């Protein structure tokens, strides 16, 4: 029943995204209109994959960090991606894919730095990831990249640099079948790694030491989950900029319905995150047409009141 409801919500979200838009397309033309075929459908599907990836990434990181505040963008990826994008514009890197590629590379560099910072001497003499250090390292790397980015924007002469911020604040305007194809070739790998880690993540929730006694390879698990979740987020930020709240709120919303078992929580987060982002993007396109709102603002406007409501209900019981 719960799954049926979630599947229904996803279908409704995708249908609305295809049917509604600022441009008027007659019902009879829905199948033929290039606006629907080349813009709305790839954008809806891209939004679904990005929203789902962010939510799964958030759910995994919250389990890994054992911190309800963990968010895919807390670990420095947004700063790295923004710096990459700004560098691409400042260096006049040409080509239609320069910006997303540079953002992806920037996010990977930040990821590598944070990973290296998070590796410390730990249990049993080997090096291992310390979630607390990861969190602090992520914030530090993100802040530093943000500062470098702002410095470049302040001193550079390139007139378009201000718009790099617009891009960074997120949106799905860059959606096309090509973008969707690239993302769909990439996303399944980290996604499957995370889904496969569902059972060990349940055990990790008990604490690192109990998890070890229960036979989980905690050292490898933490690395695998951190890298897979970050690689998912890096891809998402490259195609759509930083879209907040989806990765933070959707996992919590899903925990309220599906409980703590990651085998159910991760797929539910994927569908829930996808549906939320697609609904938010449709609202962003339609609400103030012909203008468009940044989608991150809409995810917050829809998500935060919902989140607050549920938070009150949970804490009341």
């Amino acid at each position, binding site marked *: 029943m719960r799954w049926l409801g979630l599947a229904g919500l996803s279908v409704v979200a995708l249908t609305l995204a295809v049917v509604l*838009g600022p441009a008027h397309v007659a019902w009879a033309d829905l199948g033929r209109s290039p*606006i629907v075929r080349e813009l709305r459908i790839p954008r809806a599907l891209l939004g679904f994959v990005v929203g789902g990836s962010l939510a799964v990434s958030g759910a995994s990181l919250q389990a890994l960090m054992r911190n309800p505040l963990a968010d895919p963008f807390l670990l420095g990826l947004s700063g790295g991606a923004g710096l990459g994008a700004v560098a691409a514009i400042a260096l006049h890197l040409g080509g239609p894919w320069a910006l997303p590629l540079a953002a992806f590379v920037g996010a990977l560099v930040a990821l590598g730095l944070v990973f290296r910072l998070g590796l410390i001497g730990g249990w049993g003499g080997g090096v291992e990831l310390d979630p607390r250090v990861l969190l602090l390292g992520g914030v530090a790397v993100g802040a530093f990249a943000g500062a470098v980015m702002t410095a470049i924007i302040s001193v550079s002469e390139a007139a378009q640099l*201000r718009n790099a911020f*617009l891009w960074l604040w997120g949106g799905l305007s860059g959606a*096309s079948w090509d973008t969707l194809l690239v993302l769909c070739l990439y996303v399944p790998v980290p996604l499957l790694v995370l889904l496969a880690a569902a059972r060990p993540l349940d055990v990790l929730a008990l604490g690192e030491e109990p998890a070890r006694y229960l036979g989980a390879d905690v050292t490898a698990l933490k690395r695998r989950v951190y890298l897979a979740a970050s690689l998912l987020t890096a891809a998402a930020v490259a195609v759509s900029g930083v879209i907040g709240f989806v990765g933070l709120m959707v996992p919590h919303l899903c925990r309220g319905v599906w409980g703590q078992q990651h085998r159910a929580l991760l797929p539910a987060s994927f569908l829930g995150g996808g549906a939320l982002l697609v609904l938010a993007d449709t609202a962003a396109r339609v609400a103030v047409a012909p203008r468009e709102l940044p989608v991150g603002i809409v995810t917050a406007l829809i998500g935060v009141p919902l989140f607050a409501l549920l938070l009150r209900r949970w804490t009341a019981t």
Partner: protein
Amino acid sequence: MRRWADRIHLAARLLVSVAVLGACGRAGDRQTAASQASGALTVTDDAGHRVTLPAPARRIVSVAPSSTELLFALGAGPQVVGRTTWCKYPPAALAVPVIGDGLNPSLEAVAARRPDLVVLYRSALNEAAAAQLARIGVPALVVKQDRLEDLARAAQLLGVVTGHSSAGDTIAAAIDAVLRTPPPPRHVRLAFVVWDNPPMVIGAGSYLDQIAGLAGGVNVFHDIPAASATVSLETIAARDPQVIAVLDDSTPVGEPAYTARPEWQVVRAVRLRRFVHLPADLFGRPSPRTAEAVAELRRLLEAWR
């Protein structure tokens, strides 16, 4: 685009009122009135503040490319002692020392030029800066230069405070004449795309929308009151402009990178590579050379009529 900063701000339109001590009416009378009052003059700027100068300004710092160009056009170029990094027109302006990029002016850098007048474009940040400058005894004039009619008034205002009021009147009259000229009868529908992701276009609040209208074009986003706005790509596709106007920066002139993106091919003008390239010197800001800009755009649009 950084250059847009001097026009993308939402503000209620204030009427510029130029009031010189002891005079009212046409600007032509003002200079005489001002000189009769031993050279001292008082004007009301576009922020509504009364600014008093003991005499026409001799050392001016201009904190916007549009006012720098206007000051040079008035013949007040030799009186300009400070400019921003973006003030590159006319070429003679390049000899003037730079005080910064003008977005958040460093008051110390401005004051170091020992100006007797600072000209700022109208924005909340600049109004605060003007108040601070006034406190250290430097008169600052806030001038709105978003639309072509603003430019006519700005020309008269700056003409009065620099002692070139007849030049100011001439420029204002020339701009008024352009604004009154009927456009060519057959219209070309166009969109100004200033950024691709998210797509940003020029709306009715911009002088570019006015220039398009005067040159026989119709901005397909004329219904957006703001100077610029983020829109959906599908809106651009649905409104189907005949041509896309591209503002050419200092960056290499050519087709913008987004024209190769697959999703942009839905826009017919992009698919058919129908672009008009507008040189930034002439179209990058409201300019006293508006007549020239209108004629140039008219010529460029002729091919698509």
